């Protein structure tokens, strides 16, 4: 028995359902009852109940793509800030995808302090110690581009339904974007004016995520800046 509709706004402590549902993030079970634990939008799919949060810090989970910044190194790897309460560990072997003889190789040639890295969350243990990997194509150290931060809860809006917002940003904005689940976004493009326009669009998405018609407004804004021309 469901007490709410799909996509309905719920608040912590609110009764959502009763019965044998699968309770996912943002909800909890007490006996037969299922309650919301965060402010968010109900996402009801079959027997699955999930609340999509509208606020909150990024908490890493396996499989997420994140954009980290190297803040420290140790003998066999690096520590990355992930815009989260937790740091990520990246072993050199998970960056290079091969065995590394640490006696012979100086790993500082691969990553340095302040480097931006696209990585995949490989494992998170019960104490929230995070292992990253960055060996796949398109991962690893980022070259050039601009880094922007938005609230991690707004990442789904940046991507949009079936990637619609992301497509608008890339196509109209004439840029390529890489979106980390942790709210960090890399932007590459040829025209600095359009890069700045996309940055402004991202800030607008963050600010106006709760107002409907957002994709259209972003589209209009980017078109307008594009039509003004110039570098």
């Amino acid at each position, binding site marked *: 028995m469901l007490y709410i509709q799909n996509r309905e706004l719920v608040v912590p402590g609110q009764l959502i359902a009763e019965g044998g549902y699968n309770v996912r993030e943002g909800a909890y079970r007490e006996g037969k009852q299922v309650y919301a634990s965060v402010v968010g939008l109900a996402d009801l799919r079959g027997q699955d109940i999930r609340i999509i949060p509208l606020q909150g810090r990024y908490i890493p989970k396996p499989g997420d793509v994140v954009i980290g*910044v*190297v*803040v420290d190194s140790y003998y066999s790897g690096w520590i990355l*800030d992930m*815009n989260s309460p937790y740091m990520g560990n990246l072993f050199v072997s998970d960056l290079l995808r091969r065995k590394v003889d640490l006696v012979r190789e100086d790993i500082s040639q691969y990553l340095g*302090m*302040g480097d*931006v890295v696209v990585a995949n969350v490989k494992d998170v243990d019960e104490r929230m110690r995070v292992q990253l990997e960055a060996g796949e194509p398109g991962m690893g150290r980022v070259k050039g581009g*601009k*880094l922007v*931060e938005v609230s991690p809860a707004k990442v789904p809006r940046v991507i949009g339904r079936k990637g619609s917002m992301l497509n608008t940003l890339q196509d109209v904005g004439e840029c390529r974007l890489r979106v980390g689940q942790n709210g960090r976004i890399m932007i590459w493009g040829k025209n*600095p004016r359009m890069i*700045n326009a996309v*940055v*402004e669009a991202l800030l607008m998405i963050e600010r106006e995520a709760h107002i409907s018609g957002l994709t259209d407004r972003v589209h209009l804004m980017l078109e307008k800046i594009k039509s003004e021309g110039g570098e």
Partner: protein
Amino acid sequence: MYEIVSSVRRDYIADLAREGKRIDARTLNQFREVSVEVGPIKSAQGSALVKVGKTQVIAGIKVEHAEPFPDKPDNGMLIVNAELLPLASPTFEPGRPNENAIELARVVDRGIRESNAIDLDKLVIKSGEDVWAVFIDIYVLDHDGNLIDASALAAIAALLNAKPLEDEAWTLPEFPIQKRPVTVTVAKINNKLIIDPCLDEEGVMDARISIATIEDGSICAMQKGGIGYFLREELEQAYEMARAEGAELRAKLG
């Protein structure tokens, strides 16, 4: 570690400055939107909530009996205190005021004191024994940059809002305010001068100069901050910016 992240942001803001642009789309000499709400705190003698963009500061006035300083037996006292509340920024921590909080309080103090904004001669009850002490407490609620200008404006707005004391020793018909000092901060980024730096801009600025002016446009206090430098022409230009903007801000005091 946050410094490293901001290095990307630093480049962005510096690039914009070179083109005469700013991260929040303002012009170089455009102040953020300012609002002044007087009297929100009824438990204070006078109070004001000032918003400069997303920065929010409350100033509250309290007046109490005090023993005067031995070298100033015929003067009331002015005490300015500033709290960088931990709720205002992830970088503010609970505890005793740090150097930033103390600098903020002292810069606000100098603007009020050196302009003789308060007629302290009138705040004497009995020479050498009993005077009025005016406490200005600056409460920073939300930090999005330029706390000095927001705090100084809140302080003078709260003073202008201050009511006579309900105390038999208080004989003045109103609170003795005679000047309206207003402080305007100009920051230097990539050799460009910008007025009213927001937090992101403060993070990358080379230096700042805060200039307090009074009604006739003359200066009553200044403070340079940051490890960078100003050239003479830059200071003169900053003063012109502060003078012009000072008049605008003063108009908001009613």
